[in-house]
């Protein structure tokens, strides 16, 4: 039962399966054999198209060349997310990937900004963030010396294929087929093999469940259990649609709030990914489809598909000799583009904790503890966007406003509201500047803040703020337009878009 782990079987392809395969194959090459089982019959969800900066570190570790990857996945750059209408219906803010201003040790930069406001120096927090300003101007450039922080928009299905080619070069064996049966050890319950419809039997020492919402191994076989978060995350449906790109691709994702959820726009090199996330209690599937079709620009490429989901998390993501990654581990709506990230961190964690000599309980416990900690913090960050709103134009928003949120989130909101105090917990994904941008953007005005800036004279503070602002503005000015940079750097050579028919987001 508890034997050396040599043969790893990944059940399911898609982004989760192939990210896992690529990482394991590259890092543990020669130490394990990897087989991935996927069925062309079962579609993958394939709407996870926006990412966050840690993906770049991941690509560096497994030595993926950026230009090659972007060309193959029709990718564009992403400097952040533009949240429109979340605060009061007609507002807009950007949660950008950069650092805000310059922070001395004793007191973070935003306190200086707040003191500036008090003294009549009007500015937006985003003025002090390079990525924010570049996004606003649709500019982008990167180089080996550049410090700009960014991620990508990519087409998930194409990215998966890219990683499949990569993994197969490192020896991953792909088996086409649909899983019919799962064989378990009679006493321990450990999984021994997967039996396909064709009758082929795939045996393994360790299994990774990337079978999506079904959780074929972790749930249908091992009955691990699911913790439901529907009382905190009330959206439970999404309808996705890809359209022809109209206008140049902007370097950010757009998230536009509506009366029962929100809508995304993710620009790729040659097309636009669109989606509508909603709560089925407040909007029917037909209404959602109509709403989405009415809002998109450009011709639809495929039929819109409705996806149902249950926000929540598997009670344990590592159970016996199975680790669940991707949708099999749980689901949080893509409001902050965390889905692919969680697969990357999940497989990285597994590699560091790899059970070479056999599965032992301390490994499982440590893995599950880290995974749980990670997901709860992300969950809180998402709930924040909904709960802290001034909107009351529908039952949906009123329900969110009146919601009793997790204590872990409530105390953060209190601390910021009272004292502009913000922090990052250990191993937490979202840093202080992320919390600040969203809380300020959603309308929290701190009652008080750190007084250290008061030791500066008006003149000095004005100078400090102006210097940062101007340095950023100068740097942005030098940058080329995003779509021009993309064409030069990693363009796939598709027809460029018609500039005149572009929808313009509300002015900030």
């Amino acid at each position: 039962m508890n034997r050396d782990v040599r043969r790893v079987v990944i059940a399911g392809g898609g982004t989760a399966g192939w990210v896992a395969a690529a990482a394991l194959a590259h890092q543990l090459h020669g130490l394990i054999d990897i087989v991935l089982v996927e069925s062309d019959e079962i579609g993958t969800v394939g709407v996870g198209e926006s990412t966050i900066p840690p993906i770049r570190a991941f690509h560096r570790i497994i030595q993926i060349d950026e230009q090659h990857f972007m060309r193959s996945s029709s990718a564009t750059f992403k400097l952040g997310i533009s949240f429109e209408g979340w605060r009061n219906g007609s507002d807009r803010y950007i949660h950008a990937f950069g650092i805000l201003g310059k922070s001395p040790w004793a007191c973070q930069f935003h306190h200086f900004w707040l003191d500036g406001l008090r003294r009549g120096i009007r500015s937006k927090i985003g003025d002090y963030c390079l990525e924010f300003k570049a996004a606003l101007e649709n500019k982008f450039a990167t180089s080996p010396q550049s410090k700009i922080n960014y991620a990508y928009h990519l087409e998930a299905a194409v990215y998966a294929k890219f990683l499949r080619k990569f993994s197969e070069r490192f020896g991953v064996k792909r088996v086409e087929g649909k899983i019919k049966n799962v064989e378990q050890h009679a006493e321990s319950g450990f999984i021994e093999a997967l039996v396909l419809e064709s009758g082929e039997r795939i045996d393994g020492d360790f299994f990774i469940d990337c079978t999506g919402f079904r959780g074929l191994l972790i749930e249908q076989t091992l009955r691990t259990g699911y913790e439901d978060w529907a009382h905190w995350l009330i959206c439970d449906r999404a309808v996705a649609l890809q359209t022809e790109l109209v206008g140049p691709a902007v370097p950010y994702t757009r998230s536009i709030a509506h009366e029962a959820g929100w809508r995304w726009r993710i620009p790729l090199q040659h097309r636009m990914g669109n989606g509508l996330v909603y709560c089925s209690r407040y909007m029917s599937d037909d209404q959602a489809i109509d709403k989405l079709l009415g809002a998109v620009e450009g011709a639809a490429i495929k039929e819109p598909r409705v996806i149902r989901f249950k926000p929540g998390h598997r009670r344990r993501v590592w159970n016996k000799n199975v680790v669940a990654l991707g949708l099999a581990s749980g689901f949080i709506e893509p409001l902050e583009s965390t889905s692919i990230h969680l697969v990357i961190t999940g497989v990285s964690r597994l590699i560091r904790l790899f059970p070479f000599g056999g599965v032992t309980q301390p490994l499982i416990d440590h893995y599950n503890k880290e995974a749980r900690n990670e997901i709860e913090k992300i969950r809180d960050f998402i709930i924040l966007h909904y709960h802290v709103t001034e909107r009351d134009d529908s039952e949906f928003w009123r329900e969110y406003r009146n919601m009793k949120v997790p204590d872990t989130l409530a105390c953060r909101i209190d601390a910021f509201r009272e004292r502009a105090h913000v922090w990052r917990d250990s191993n937490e994904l979202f840093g202080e500047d992320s919390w600040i941008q969203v809380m300020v953007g959603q309308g929290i005005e701190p009652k008080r803040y750190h007084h250290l800036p008061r030791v500066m004279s008006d003149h000095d503070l004005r100078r400090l703020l102006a210097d940062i602002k101007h340095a950023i503005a100068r740097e942005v000015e030098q940058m080329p337009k995003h779509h021009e940079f993309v064409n030069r750097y990693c363009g796939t050579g598709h027809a460029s878009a018609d500039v005149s028919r572009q929808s313009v987001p509300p002015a900030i």
Partner: protein
Amino acid sequence: MKPQSVKKVVIAGGGTAGWITAAALSQQLGPLLEITLIESEQIGTVGVGEATFPTVLSFHRLLGLDEREFLRVTRGSIKLGISFENWARRGDRYIHSFGVIGRSTWLGDFHHFWLAAKQSGFAGELGDCCFELQAAQAHKFFTSEKSKINYAYHFDAALYARYLRARSEAKGVKHVEGKIVRVIQHPDTGFIQSLVLESGQRIDGDFFIDCTGFRAVLIEQTLKAGYEEWSRWLRNDRAIALQTDYPLDDIPPYTRAIAHQSGWQWKIPLQHRQGTGHVYSTAYTTDEEARRVLMDNLEGDIRVELQLLKFRPGRRRSAWVKNCVAVGLSSGFIEPLESTSIHLIQSGVARLLRMFPFCGYSEALVREYNKESQIEYERIRDFIILHYKATERDDTPYWRDCRDMDVPDTLASRLDLFRETGLIFPDPKDLFRVESWLQVLTGQRVQPTAYHHMPHMLSSEELRTMLETLSTNIRAAVAKMPTHKEFLHQYCSVEQGDTVAQ
């Protein structure tokens, strides 16, 4: 935005805690606050906290201290780590140094390479791959802008307090001599309003910092914060301390922690003398016996004899209550086995600076401060307990009880994980990093039964070469360094300086 309502800050108590607080507050927030420190010469300070942890260097940068001047004034020396003697077995010795071991990769920590080599029979000592450990063992030291070595200090706590007092007063801190006899609270809220001294003098304040030591006059006697005891894990409850002449020709750049039958003894080298003390448990031995053990293990003549100290290991349930924060011994006590007392003071003060309540009380802020303080204390506690739990000694009831005791779950799960997999995952905010856990676990003879297999990607030859190259380079670098004594003489000895703070 509300105007600043907290302006008058009163620090109750001097000593290291009081003057570190005064120096930091006046340096960082001076123009915004009026700071008064009350201390009484009648009440002695504990003054044995003489070894530190590398975080002291960044704290000193915050205070704007010049290293050479500080070392000269406090007769300080360099600390590269702690030498633990007789802990896992009598006769054992290992060093917990401040260095990193080898070079770790993203995939996993370096020690897995060493464990793999050990299994193949050619590893050598773990410490061969650690620069600071090798330097410590050779009694060498050197630092400069270009040279990267991780270190801390030993210093005379009383001289340190005096030094910080001079700097604080220069920055406007008002010093009041006197003994606190009464604390006046607001009748409704219970917030502290003023302190009344024996002389009748009354000191008003908006915010109070309790540095009154074990007595915890404000946080406990007045505000009744409560204390969580840890005696079931940490048995020691007394200490006697001495200072002797420094008898040897050579000054080791490390603290020594020598385990005895019912406790342990520290030896801390300063430029002009040696500090030593015996920490022990009255449940297993008597004061007389403990004193005899100390006297039997001295070098040099006794210069100063300090009083007997009684303590209860544990932590104040809330470090911050209403308008009072406890810093130093008033916030809790963990024996100085890993020199954490001054770190806890500095960390608490740094936290207070970042969360300073300019506009008055904030529930959310206080909760966050207390939570961070609790986590910090508990993690350090666990690391200390490890030294006792992971023993093979059974020569006295004291050691048998240590070996057999239950430990907190947070420590038990780390021990289990290491034993079964060789993996160590401290939290990023932990004071003690992977290399600290590793050196102590290995030194205490805790053997993992497995390890990460990434080293198998190298051939036996490649692995051997990697380890040998690393240890050869380290040895060569250490050989070039001057001795610790030479370094001190050249860098910061009393003869060097133009002025000596008295």
